[in-house]
């Protein structure tokens, strides 16, 4: 495809209370940016999580970070800090981006 650059999409579903820690980690590892989306509900090993209770402890968010190989390797390297024993999932997909110099 013309004018596009190959990058990776990192998509992380994580508890809202830990979201800031994750974005700080991404910043620290050299990511040029990220986008955070709200999540309504989810199911995983820890059962059902439904967003919206008053304490906010059941809320999840989805964090999308498009980045180059180097950042992806750094994120994989920090998997312990990222995941620990916490509820969270991480997936990585190939993609092509416009304005590749920004990622």
């Amino acid at each position, binding site marked *: 495809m013309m004018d596009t650059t190959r990058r990776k999409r990192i998509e992380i579903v994580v*508890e809202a*209370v*830990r979201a800031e820690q994750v974005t700080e980690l991404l910043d620290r590892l050299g990511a040029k940016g990220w986008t955070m989306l709200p999540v309504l509900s989810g199911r995983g090993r*820890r*059962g*059902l999580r*439904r*967003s*919206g*209770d*008053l*304490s*906010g*402890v*059941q809320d999840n968010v989805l964090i999308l970070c498009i980045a180059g190989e180097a950042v992806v390797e750094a994120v994989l390297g920090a998997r312990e800090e990222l995941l*620990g*024993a*916490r509820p969270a999932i991480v997936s990585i997909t190939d993609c092509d981006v416009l304005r590749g110099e920004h990622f």
Partner: protein
Amino acid sequence: MPDLNILLPTPVLFFALGMLAGALRSDLAVPDSLAKGLSLYLMMAIGLKGGAALAIAGAGGTMLPTLAAGILLSLLLPLPAYLALRGPVGLDRTTAGAVAAHYGSVSVVTFAAAQGVLSARGVSAEPFMPAVLAAMETPAIVTGLLLARGAGGAVFSSRLLREVFLNGSVVLLLGSFLIGWIGGAAAAQQLAPFTTQLWQGALCFFLLEMGLMASRQLRAAGRGLPPALIAFGVLMPLFGAACGLGCGLLIGLSPGGVALLTVLSASASYIAVPAAMRMALPEADAGIYVTLSVAVTFPFNILAGIPLYLWLAGA
């Protein structure tokens, strides 16, 4: 039918309606942001009314002892809770500490519901009780963490300290209390339509949502809630209530004041403490403490506890 109205206060009936609708899997739902807004409203109104009442009536000699008692109750009630949770209930250490913290701390809406019943009965209480409510929110977190982690090592990160001492509920309650106190009688009168007249309606609306939420939590927990845990969620408030009642009587509070201190000691946090525990004790099972507090203890206190505590306090 004034008698029926006192036996079954309207806000409590809305809580029951919410629980019933949830149990029958009706699609009735209150938007999350509205529920959050109503909870902020309740804290503002509780704080403002208390602060203004304090400015008007003065503290009297019982304020400091009651504040001290509240802080001690919050610090100490997690200890028996922890023992029960480790022993008979058999939780792991971390989750037991996290759950215990909830029972030292307090529930704003349980307090609000009790206030509503008192005011419907025309029983007054010491004006500083909202300050006691705010004071009891966080000490329990300290005890819970010490129990879960032991005293060695860094128990409190700076992020956690912020979570604990600058928790939104505490800031809003104390801030509104102070603002109400500064404003005094003049502000109280100006704000009365907001803080007083709207109060019962907002409480009904919020308790409807709390009922729905309790049902939702119960269903999400499914078979995950062993009987021993449910028993704890009912017996611990009774134990807390007894301690609160004793303190209130010792201090010599009015019947309304004794009733509110009893209710506070019996109630369990479902906003401030879960948030702090999620941050500080990620290994603890959030499903347990959220469900126990919202879906067992809260309904028990609203439906059975408050009438009992008020009766015991003679209010």
